[in-house]
């Protein structure tokens, strides 16, 4: 576990997608609610990797659809960089 904080994570998602942070929930759908496409998810994954200094496989990003899944992925499977 990387001890990510949900509120801070939601704010980062909000900054990236330009949607108010209070509208970002665990169950928010990246495709239908935030209008992302699959390539956009990779860009978002990289953006989050850079913020948290973590790395998650692109292949894991390719199969998620909820913001909560992205949070869990980074929190539980993100590998700290430079370690």
């Amino acid at each position, binding site marked *: 576990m990387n001890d990510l904080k949900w509120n801070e994570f939601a704010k980062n998602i909000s900054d*990236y*997608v*330009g*949607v*108010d942070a209070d509208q970002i929930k665990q169950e928010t*759908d990246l*495709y*239908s609610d*935030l*209008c*992302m*496409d*699959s*390539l*956009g998810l*990779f*860009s978002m994954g*990289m953006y989050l990797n850079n913020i948290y200094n973590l790395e998650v*496989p*692109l*292949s894991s990003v*390719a*199969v998620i659809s909820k913001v909560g899944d992205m949070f869990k992925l980074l929190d539980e499977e993100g590998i700290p960089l430079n370690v």
Partner: protein
Amino acid sequence: MNKFIDSLYKYAEEKPTSTLITIDGISITYGEFKEYTEKISMSLNTLGISENKKVGLIIPNSLQWYKIFWSAIRIGAQPVPVDPQSGELELNRLLDITDMEVCFIACKYRNNNILNTVKSIIEKHSNIKHIIVIDSICTDFDTPKFMTYEKFVGLGEGKTLSQVYNVDDEHVMSLACTSGSTGNPKILSVPYNGFYDAIKDISDYLEFDSFDTMMIGMPLYHQGGFGMGMQVVVKGGNVIYQPQFEPMEFLKTVAQKKVTVIQLTSTLAKILLSVPDFYSYDMSSVKVCYFAGEVLPKEIAKIFVEKLNIRVINVIGSSETATMVVWDSENDYDTDPSDFRELPFTKVRVLDENDNEVDTGTAGELCIYTSAVIFNYYKNDYESAAKVINFDNKRWFKTGDLVEKLNDGRIRFVGRSKRIIKRGANLVHAEEVESFLLSYPKIQAVAVTAEDHPIIGQQIVAYIQSVGGQNVTRGELARYFDGKMSAYKLPDKIILTEDLPKDIGKIQFKYIRK
């Protein structure tokens, strides 16, 4: 003679139980393909579809797509595959220009509600007589033009239509749709016999045979994704598509089905290579990895050649030409995968602004001959005259790619003569996005440009000057795009600025592009 249908039906007679195509784990054999296409073409015929009538397909990768496409071909009709990501604006233009009489649609594709969009615009398109909804789960269409797929298939019950349409050299196989630079779609008239010959030529060059199984990462509605699959099908092999790209499933399927040819883009390859236990998947059956649609970095090619012992073929093609030029690791490994050579069945010219050949070492526009060069852009004489030229009694295509002629006869891609953003394998025309963004009331001026991205090649960046300095967020633009414009055209990044020139789109583009 009907080259594609004749060869597919020949395999249906010779080996009826052999698999032709698999999508989402469900297969149809060559024998079943013949039965389905005979039946569905009868249903189409009952709806008045015959020679040169247009049949729309707004459907993601599915067996229905394949069956309907070839059933239309069988009776000389022209399928019109449409990107199922298309929103209201794009569909309005396409339905207007393509003269579709019957259109098959899926209910939804990801967040794009195709059924709702088509319902909301159908009354404007009197040319469309029937909309057939292929998903049995959605029945919310109580209007006369709509019918279920089951009802449609039932129309052909008990009737027979044994004759296959006899194709001549002038016959248009299908209308392929691409987005135009100003948002007006370009519709490509694909030559039937020329396209078949191009598919057969590259299939022979790569020595595909009936034992080959190709797994494809690109979609069927994309002329490239469809055409590459046909390269093994014309030899009696079989082809596998996924409904949407799923990396782990892709690798599992390669191992289970002993896939011999895989087709990827650079982005898809990066995703596959990031699978944590990538090297534990058995890829020993794969002999060729086929790249198209994006720049291929040498380091990715090296992994496939040196670590996996797989021949890498990187092709440049377009919907207007089929395969144009190639980089083949067996012959070209000492060069960069962005340096290409012509194939035995294609011809290359590099032209200056007066259409004269440039000297070696000089850049110019790539002009290509292949047997598949389109007849024209449908109903667009101006673009047709500008892009499809006659030389040496053959149709050549001016690609818009800027290339440099190298000393050894190869060509090196150096850019595009137009403002095209290559986001993954999608081509996005900056002017189209700018034009749509300018329709948003809070935007005063906008300039759309590309920014390099390590995974997807390029991302879309919009520099926006808002009305009265208001805040404009990517989120509100996403809602504005939703249902109207494909999600992949939404800018990845918004940069608000105060000093953007107001007549953006011409000289000023160069001003902001560093």
